[in-house]
């Protein structure tokens, strides 16, 4: 059951602002009703934590700087079951540390939002320079089979908008939602318009209201595996949650059968609702010879290449993924069946392109315009790939 309400005006800093993506993430979270932030400093994401720390006493929220990223994300699980909407922010090395407990959040179906302001890796890599190298980690990083939702904003305004969206998805599907932004968007100052609270819709937590002794934290709906309602500590439900495979009561069950039910639910609640979750922008796909598929900051470079290609008479479509996970499988499959080539520029050595290739399944050329990170593309590199694709 998804219940939408208007945002609490207390957290909405209404009006036009000139702010960077990191700050916009914090403002989006506050507008969405997040009042609990646990984080650890890491370039280039720290500004979000700083903004939250500054705004917390004004909005009745709590900011805590934890001892590391492991503690930060684990504190979110506590915060969420304590009844709050919760968020943290990090970058590559911190993300690596968080992964185990992102798995715990998936297993315990705990809603939370984690922003990864990506920087170059591996290891300490290029702390102050941009990258999109954690896209596969976002999807596969924690061990075991699970699903998360990942969004990729391309501007500070979209950082604000998608932060709200991320909370709404997290509450709807009881799942960690990752905002996979990058150093460029994080540190880019642009106009961000924060609408009045009355125009912001936020999804309220689906609270359980039935008899106390009958609450089952992991009982899911018959339709599309939708997760059931939540409760919070202190309300007398005396519930149990665990990272072990569990039954609908949350009790550990070390059996093949229990694992099948448990894991199928975690996967299907995302996969079978893919059409409701996936967001994208598509432009001039009809009749296109080549389509550029991109996300995040790279989309803003790609658009220049797309326009240049069109000027040269190449019918070029543009497809911007807003949701990267779950992957827009249907849409890419359809594009692949109609075009000569799909061009995939990313600031990594080729990650999301693997998904595009999987969907294309040989029906069209798939050209990866990859990079080792640190800077956005030169639009001419993408243009060259578009030309190569048409030939």
């Amino acid at each position, binding site marked *: 059951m998804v219940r939408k309400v208007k945002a609490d005006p207390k957290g909405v800093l209404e009006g036009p602002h000139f702010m960077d993506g990191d700050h916009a993430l914090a403002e989006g979270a506050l507008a969405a009703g997040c009042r*609990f932030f*646990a984080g650890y400093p890491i370039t280039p994401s720290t500004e979000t934590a700083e903004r939250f720390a500054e705004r917390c*006493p004004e909005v*009745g*929220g*709590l900011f*805590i700087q*934890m*001892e*590391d990223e*492991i*503690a*930060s994300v*684990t*504190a*979110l*699980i*506590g*915060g*969420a*079951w*304590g*009844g*709050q909407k*919760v968020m943290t922010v990090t970058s590559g090395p911190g993300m690596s540390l968080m992964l*185990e*407990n992102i*798995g*715990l959040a998936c297993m315990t179906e705990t809603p939370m939002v984690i922003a990864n302001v990506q920087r170059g890796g591996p290891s300490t890599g290029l702390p102050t320079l941009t990258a999109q190298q954690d896209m596969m980690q976002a999807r596969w990083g924690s061990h075991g089979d699970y699903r998360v939702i990942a969004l990729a904003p391309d501007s500070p305004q979209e950082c604000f908008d998608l932060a709200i969206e991320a909370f709404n998805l997290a509450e709807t599907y009881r799942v960690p939602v990752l905002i996979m932004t990058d150093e460029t968007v994080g540190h880019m100052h642009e106009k961000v318009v924060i609408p009045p609270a009355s125009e912001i819709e936020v999804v309220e937590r689906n609270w359980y209201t039935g008899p106390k002794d009958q609450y089952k934290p992991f009982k899911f709906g018959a339709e599309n595996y939708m997760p059931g309602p939540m409760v*919070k*500590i*202190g*309300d*007398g*439900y*005396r*519930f*149990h*949650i*665990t*990272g*072990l495979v569990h039954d609908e009561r949350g*009790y*550990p069950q070390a059996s093949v059968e229990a694992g099948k039910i448990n894991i199928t639910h975690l996967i299907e609640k995302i996969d079978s609702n893919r059409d409701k979750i996936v967001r994208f922008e598509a432009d001039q796909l009809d009749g296109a010879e080549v389509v550029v598929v991109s996300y995040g900051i790279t989309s803003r470079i790609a658009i220049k290449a797309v326009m240049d290609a069109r000027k040269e008479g190449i019918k070029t479509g543009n497809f911007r993924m807003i949701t990267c996970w779950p992957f827009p499988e249907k849409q890419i499959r359809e594009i692949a069946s109609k075009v000569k080539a799909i061009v995939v520029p990313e600031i990594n050595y080729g990650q999301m392109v693997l998904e595009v290739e999987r969907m294309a399944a040989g029906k069209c050329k798939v050209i990866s315009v990859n990079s080792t990170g640190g800077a956005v593309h030169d639009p001419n590199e993408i243009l060259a790939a578009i030309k190569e694709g048409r030939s």
Partner: protein
Amino acid sequence: MNVNANANFAQDNPMSQFLRMERMPHIWCPGCGIGTVVTAFAEAVKKSGLDLDKIAIVSGIGCTGRTAGYVKLDSFHSTHGRAIPLATGLKLANPEMKVVVFSGDGDLTSIGGNHFIHAARRNMDITVVCVNNFTYGMTGGQMTPTTPHTANASTTPYGNYEYPFSLPFLADACGATYIARWTSLHARQISGSIKEALNHKGFSFVEVIAPCTTLYQRRNRLGDGLDALEYYQNDAEIAHGLDTRQVDIDYQGKIKVGKFVEKQKPTYLDNVNQHYAQVIGDEYELYGKTTPEKEAEAKAKAESAAKGAV
């Protein structure tokens, strides 16, 4: 004849309000000390008069980590070492709750050591109970940070050449404001200390030395659970208030027990509120007020408004 073969044993057991009886019998080995500590915890909660609905319990991974799954409270079985950050999140999101961490020595002070020292440093208002059996039980008897020097473990098969932590000293050095240690034989004293810890405002730490019969006892040829309790009976010395620098445990040596530290210091949340109230002033709205506090405030506000109207 004063003995009952009770068909309703689980329901009539005084622990039934406290344990998930449908999950009994538990997985712990014969002679393991964890069950005793759980009973002592239950007794402490009963004696404290606290509302069971307002206590949450968090465990990490390992034998002691299974406690959360057996206790009929809001209960969280988290990942290895991460019970304290999860408890921190619970406490800060819902400060009305008493939050208790139940952890083993390896879970709490090896993989979770960083969280332990920082929660103590912040004087986070949680209670941490550590069942210290000197070994990793669940994974098969490896060395932990508390395994005494020279003791045998499966990863120190020729004896432990590392120096162990003395947990009360560690907690003290990091700023914990209540510290006690007992052995699992001191069931009533454990219960008394946990009751005090629950009522203590701030980071409270109760260490319980307990037998791991299957691994630590057996590997070191120390006999079974009864032999361990006999060792505790002979070699535990009550020393309330003893300087925590003097409470380290040598292999099969004396075990100093008692309440070592009890002091008052503002908690993490006290500091958040006091500090903001000071630097921001009256417009700062205190974070995490309890329901009665909020109600009292609303009433006072209404009264003062009524007076103003007169």
